[in-house]
């Protein structure tokens, strides 16, 4: 007979797993704190001996340098604040409604409640935007703006590249993955080579390739490809006419939103009718009617919503209009192509990891190949795909800083210029790291929410 052992009280804490974990953590935190404190003191001493002032006051100073690509920054005042507030409030209210309904009756909301929550989540912010339309200011950086404005502009450019890169590389990656899985020998091999080539060349080289080789093939400014002023293409970029909003622009845009909402409601109705009666309802023509008819009506009532501003040749370059700079194009194309190769592999292996039996069971139920993919394979593959895909999105955000090499004015490149001018190395590096950390954490946070949604489905 062995005596009974109570697991907790006999073992000294330094030999229990929890005790050990705690001690280890404490040592780590202690060591880290010591490192941080000594670095901080060291830095202060160094700065003092070199006579450099510390602090973030310099951010208010005039920047004085040019930024080649300026993204508008909405100023955080009046209108914008109300808009953001109403956006958050609207989403929160509609979430609350949904939860309340679900806990009350256990069923998802019906169409009456849906329109109520739709009003709060979309209508309310749109309304605020409309009411405060005159107090929303979008600032554009100029040479006389502050360092702070310069950093914001750089950050805006970084975010622009990151968002476009993530979306485009996902879509392209999915297409390449499906191509690789296709039974067509030629297609699948082309996709394989695409993946191998892009995966195995450094991303910096690829940026150089797009910027210095591909885009340099374009003609000079004087010999631009010019489609009657509507589209101008040359070494300096792609130029298109821009839309200048007039009196009726708000009404026009609002009717487009209303039309989209109406189409969405139509679609839901069609799905409901299909569910209840098995009758498919065609909504293409009513949808087109809404999408064309409503804005056309707004045009008649409110007058021409936009005028066009055509780019014109002034001096050595085109002025006015809108367009894409070669730096931006090279960066977005380079990052997208590079990351899409990785995404394709992630998606392909996710799809292949779903067992063969699943595909066979779906086929045996007479589903067609598209249904097999959409209903059975992809939802299961998602769970395998999402975590590694998060790393790829993070890679886009971080690799966008390679733009320094081709002169696209994103966050790191602008920060570098400021660092050179002001000498505030510690502050700039601190801002760099802080901001990238925030972007990365935001991406991870978003993907984790998505992941828990797809993962929870199983149990």
């Amino acid at each position, binding site marked *: 007979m062995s005596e009974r052992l109570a697991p907790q009280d006999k073992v000294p804490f330094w030999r229990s797993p929890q005790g050990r974990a705690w001690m280890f953590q404490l040592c780590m935190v202690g060591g880290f704190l010591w490192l941080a404190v000594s670095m901080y003191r060291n830095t202060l001493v160094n700065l003092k001996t070199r006579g450099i002032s510390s602090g973030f006051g310099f951010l208010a100073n005039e920047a004085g340098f040019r930024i080649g690509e300026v993204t508008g920054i909405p100023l955080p005042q009046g209108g914008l604040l109300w808009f953001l507030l109403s956006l958050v409030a609207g989403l929160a209210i509609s979430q609350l409604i949904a939860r309340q309904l679900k806990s009350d009756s256990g069923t998802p909301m019906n169409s009456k409640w849906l329109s109520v929550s739709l009003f709060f989540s979309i209508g309310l912010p749109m309304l605020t935007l409309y009411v405060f339309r005159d107090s929303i200011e979008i600032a554009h950086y100029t040479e006389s703006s502050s360092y702070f404005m310069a950093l914001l502009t750089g950050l805006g450019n970084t975010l622009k590249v990151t968002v476009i890169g993530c979306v485009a590389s996902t879509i392209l990656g999915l297409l390449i993955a499906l191509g690789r899985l296709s039974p067509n020998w030629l297609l699948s091999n082309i996709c394989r080579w695409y993946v191998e080539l892009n995966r195995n060349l450094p991303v910096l080289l690829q940026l150089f390739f797009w910027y210095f080789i591909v885009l340099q093939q374009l003609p000079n400014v004087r010999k631009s490809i010019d489609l009657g002023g509507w589209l101008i293409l040359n070494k300096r970029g792609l130029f298109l006419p821009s839309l200048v909003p007039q009196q009726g622009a708000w009404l026009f845009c609002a009717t487009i939103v209303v039309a989209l909402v109406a189409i969405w409601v139509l679609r839901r109705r069609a799905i409901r009718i*299909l*569910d*209840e*009666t*098995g009758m*498919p309802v065609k909504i293409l023509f009513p949808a087109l009617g809404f999408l064309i008819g409503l804005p056309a009506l707004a045009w008649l009532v409110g007058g021409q919503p936009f005028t066009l501003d055509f780019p014109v040749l002034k001096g050595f370059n085109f002025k006015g209009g809108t367009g894409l700079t070669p730096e931006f194009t090279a960066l977005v194309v380079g990052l997208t192509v590079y990351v899409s190769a990785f995404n394709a592999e992630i998606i392909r292996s996710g799809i292949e990891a779903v*067992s063969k*039996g*699943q595909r*066979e*069971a*779906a*086929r*045996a*139920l*007479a*589903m*067609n190949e598209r*249904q097999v993919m959409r*209903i*059975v394979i992809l*939802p*299961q593959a998602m769970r395998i795909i999402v975590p590694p895909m998060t790393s790829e999105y993070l890679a886009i955000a971080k690799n966008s800083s390679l733009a320094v090499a081709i002169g696209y004015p994103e966050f790191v490149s602008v920060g570098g210029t400021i660092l050179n001018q002001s000498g505030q190395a510690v502050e700039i590096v601190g801002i760099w790291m802080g901001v990238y950390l925030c972007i990365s954490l935001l991406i991870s946070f978003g993907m984790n929410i998505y992941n828990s949604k797809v993962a929870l*489905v*199983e*149990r």
Partner: protein
Amino acid sequence: MTTAHINTATHLGDSPVVIDIQGLNKWYGQFHVLKEINLQIRQQEKVVICGPSGSGKSTLIRTINRLEEHQEGRIVVDDEPLTNDVKQIERVRREVGMVFQQFNLFPHMTILDNVISGPIHVRNMPRKQAVDLAHSYLKRVGIAEQANKYPGQLSGGQQQRVAIARALAMQPKIMLFDEPTSALDPEMIKEVLDVMRELAEQGMTMICVTHEMGFAREVADTMVFMDKGQIVEYAPVKEFFTAPKEERSRMFLEQILNH
């Protein structure tokens, strides 16, 4: 080979032939898996296919709903010849339900969603009607209470019964079973065989690959014994168990019954 012998159940009178396989040959690369298969199956007939592992039983029944392509010969299911035509294949699959050894339920869907997936997406049935139908089949296989659980929360026997309900919800004319009890613990085999027995009594046309000889003796009209890709013996069930004609089937029976 002008008058190939067609295996057909003359002992069932003249009920119509729903599956007609003639001169079927199939290769995996160099490997000849199915050799000159001739087989006719009539409406409401219950066929049990047995034979040693690797003899081509699974491959044969998987050619019937075109999960495997064949290279030579003619397969006609419910008056629909199986060709490369996708529409034709889908029409055949709508009439042919299949139950797999590994259940193959969709793990990301509830039991109910598994069962309604066919009727809704393939038959375009209204959701409400599909749910009612699913509940009635789940009740028939004895899983009515588990409709909102996920497959991972059920035992193997329960999962296989759900798989049968899922196939039945498509209201097929023919059911294929590929070793439906081979992956089950012994105490769960009976619950699945009971469901299949009941299905047989209701007049379903069934083709089962199984080694459950008790079940075969009780339910089957016709026995097919396969070895090395060929149909070695085709016989009415009584004849097969009392007086097998072929040496190989006799040996196989001895092995499996004395085991």
